[in-house]
């Protein structure tokens, strides 16, 4: 790192304070400034539980020159805006990392309450006159966070301009004096920072050149979903608020009508999915978004979507479960529900992106697939992916098909119209209300090709086959990665199979393991239903040991894999409510690698 001509950047900051300290806000200014400066950013905030209060906020921002896949467990710098909250996190600062805190917070602070007494040997204390400078420049203590930021920017010789711009933007709807005084606070602290001793262990390099021609954007997983929906031509959205999916609806509430689309906040999740399916039946691109408890309410209606072969797209951002669970914590435990939730044999398509860019891709492709295969498509996100920021490069050309449905002309369809005709690819040409010569009735009852109720053994068998087999087509759907292998090729000692947001941590762990000389490789599975069985089987054949790490207790993805593949593998399950530790995965990789070696 220090050897390379152009310094490679990899630095992680952590802001910690109470909800009132502007903790999330300052993290936000910082990550935007870094993205503006051309760095890659990956950021994730932790809020207090839903209800308003005085809980702890943490904003973590990782700034890199090359794409990072996850947050690091250890940050380089901790900025404390509230010592009592920040003290437990001192241990998460790396050796020779820095801790910024308010030099003279309030006179009454008792012994042991100040963070400076809690630093570990090797950690660098930076006492900043946060309150003081804030008072002097703005006449109050509210700008403490800006002071901390200014100091930091000065300390690392960052360009002032992006910061100025973003601060100005932030206050643009307020009295100009607020903006000015905050800029003053920033600059004052900046100068203090510049003149402060800096240890070279932490260094901000030069960002990579932006020669891709398109502006790099920084957005959350949920924002990427919104973009994906809009680019795919979403026409109607029906939703009911629930953490951590709410912001999808909130953003669409503003953006969708701008494009002539329609959004309705329904009375509950059952109506949300029902209306989505109604709109899908009527031929519109329609979607809803929810989390586990809402998905649980939707499964009866999803079954109707399966049986009546109506397209619909459901975004489900997972949080800690079961039940109301941990609304502001992340988990990957709604997979069972997404894949198996429904009476009868009710298979549907389930996709799970692994990062923000993937969220955009899956969101858009979900509409194509729903339409093409005439089925509900569930896109599984989780709080970590929904809320985390990443710099992403979105294609300049809209990558999504405007209409993917299988249609036939009136003549080709024949009379009477057989809505559920058996075809080679098991997909029947579909008409929508208003279309001439395509009149039909769909139903949740088993039915014949015309759509009339029919419960005879042969018909039920043929229709069951149709409903299941048509989904196999999705495994070859163009323009989307169904699964992908990374790392060493060919036969390896350890293979890590992963899904969803945890795949970032898996990749990071794999990279370290490779550096350590372990022969290993990781495969992400984006389509969880139907499973891309063949590639997974091949991966099993190629890997001496297989590890499946996921953020749930029961090993839900492992269960899916196990039910399809009769070979042993190792499960790694964690339920901390926060992203998995790269170190935990790495430990397992090492253990399995050692096992392979000792067996050899």
């Amino acid at each position, binding site marked *: 790192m220090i050897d390379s001509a152009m310094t490679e950047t990899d630095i992680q900051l952590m802001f910690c304070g109470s909800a009132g300290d502007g903790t999330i806000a300052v993290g936000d200014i910082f990550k935007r400034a870094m993205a503006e400066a051309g760095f890659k950013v990956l950021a994730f905030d932790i809020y207090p539980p839903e209800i308003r209060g005085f809980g702890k906020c943490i904003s973590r921002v990782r700034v890199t020159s090359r794409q990072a896949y996850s947050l690091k467990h250890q940050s380089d710098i901790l900025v404390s805006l509230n010592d009592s909250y920040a003290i437990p996190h001192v241990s998460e600062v790396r050796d020779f990392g820095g801790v910024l805190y308010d030099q003279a917070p309030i006179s009454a602070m008792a012994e042991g309450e100040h963070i400076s007494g809690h630093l570990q040997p090797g950690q660098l204390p930076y006492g900043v006159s946060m309150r003081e400078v804030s008072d002097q420049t703005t006449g109050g203590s509210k700008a403490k966070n800006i002071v901390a930021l200014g100091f930091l920017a000065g300390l690392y010789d960052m360009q002032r301009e992006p910061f100025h711009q973003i601060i100005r933007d932030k206050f643009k709807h307020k009295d100009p004096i607020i903006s000015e005084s905050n800029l003053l606070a920033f600059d004052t602290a900046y100068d203090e920072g510049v003149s402060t001793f800096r240890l070279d262990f932490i260094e901000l390099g030069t960002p990579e050149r932006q020669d891709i021609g398109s502006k790099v954007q920084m957005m959350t997983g949920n924002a990427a979903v919104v973009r994906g929906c809009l680019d795919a031509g979403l026409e109607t959205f029906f939703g009911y608020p629930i953490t951590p999916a709410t912001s999808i609806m909130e953003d669409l509430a503003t953006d969708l009508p701008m494009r002539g689309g329609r959004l309705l906040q329904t009375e509950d999740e059952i109506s949300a999915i029902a209306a989505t399916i*109604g*709109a899908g039946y009527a031929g519109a691109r329609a979607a809803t978004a929810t989390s586990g408890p809402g998905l649980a309410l939707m499964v009866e209606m999803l079954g109707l979507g399966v049986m009546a072969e109506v397209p619909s797209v459901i975004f489900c951002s997972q949080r800690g479960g079961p039940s109301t669970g941990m609304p502001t914590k992340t988990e990957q435990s709604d997979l069972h529900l997404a894949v198996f939730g429904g009476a009868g044999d009710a298979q549907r398509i389930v996709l799970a992106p692994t990062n923000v860019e993937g969220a955009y891709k899956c969101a858009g492709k979900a509409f194509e697939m729903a339409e093409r295969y005439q089925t509900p498509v569930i896109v599984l996100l989780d709080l970590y992916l929904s809320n985390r920021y990443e710099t992403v490069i979105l294609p300049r050309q809209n990558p999504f098909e405007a209409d993917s449905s299988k249609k036939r002309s009136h003549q080709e369809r024949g009379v009477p119209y057989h809505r559920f005709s058996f075809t080679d690819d098991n997909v029947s040409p579909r008409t929508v209300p208003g279309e001439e010569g395509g*009149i039909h*009735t769909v139903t949740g009852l088993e039915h014949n090709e015309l759509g009339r109720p029919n419960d005879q053994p042969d018909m039920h068998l043929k229709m069951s086959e149709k409903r299941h087999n048509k989904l196999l087509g999705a495994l070859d759907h163009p323009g989307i990665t169904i699964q992908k292998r990374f790392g060493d090729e060919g036969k390896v000692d350890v293979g890590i199979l992963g899904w969803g947001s945890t795949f970032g941590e898996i990749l990071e762990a794999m990279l370290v393991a490779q550096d350590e000389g372990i022969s290993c490789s990781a495969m992400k599975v984006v389509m969880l239903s139907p499973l891309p069985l063949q590639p997974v089987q091949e991966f099993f054949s190629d890997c001496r040991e297989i590890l499946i790490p996921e953020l749930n207790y029961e090993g839900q993805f492992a269960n899916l894999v196990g039910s399809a593949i009769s070979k042993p593998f190792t499960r790694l399950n964690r339920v901390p409510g926060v992203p998995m530790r790269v170190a935990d995965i790495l430990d397992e990789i090492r253990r399995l690698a050692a096992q392979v070696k000792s067996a050899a």
Partner: protein
Amino acid sequence: MGNLRQPVYLEEKLEQVRESGRLNIRSKALPTWCPGCGYFSIVDGVTMAINQLQINQKDVTVVSGIGCASRFPFFLDTYGFHTLHGRTLPVATGIKVANDDLTVLAIGGDGDAFAIGGAHIPHAARRNVDITYMVFDNGIYGLTKGQTSPTSVLGFTTSTSPYQNQDRPLNPLLMMLSYDASWIGQSYAGDPRHLSEMITQAIAHRGFSYLHILSPCVTFDKTSKTYSNLKAQVRNLPDDHDSSDRMAAIGYSMDVDTPPIGLFYKESRPTLSDKLDLIVDKARGRNARASG
């Protein structure tokens, strides 16, 4: 095949009505209802209304839940969606939001509407979704063979109320009035002319129309809402009833012993689609301002 005489009779009846010219929108499917069920005349009423309003069949979508009543879409030659028990209205709302040009009829039984579907009615009504909601009220669960429903009368004996129903029935008309439905009427299966006239009006109304149709279940109710009982009870709303007078409508709705049929209440106000269009206008306006 002597035992099959009755279905043949129904087929014949179907042919008869077809021949009469006005019922070309009946599908070729044989209604699976019991002979004598009140629902037959409702099919007639709907087909007559659609004919009268000269709506193209391809532009009609009939949405239903689950129950005998909800079998309805299969017997019309229009687009149809036989959905889930209780979910008629949200599905119908989705269809209408997706395509304003469609004439959407939503159909369900009393159980489908007021038991399992109860959460959705207030919202479809207050949003003024431009659909016609017809509830076929037989005061019983027909399809599942005779259990108590939310409109079963006090003292009614069913398989789930072997010691007589003790709970007051709901008052759907009053509820609809409290939900701000913009068109509220009542009719009954024993008066096909009135029925088709009311259905025509309900469909013609721009906004959420609620038509309550009293209809006997000849198989599972031999004592309560029978043809003869209904015939004796039902009366016309007085001619001088002012359908814009909500308080008067509320008063009539409370007369459950001699249920008045006719138009209770009617009000003209923006439909859901009107409002969604307005939002699009606002969004584009705002957008223009922001970028302009």
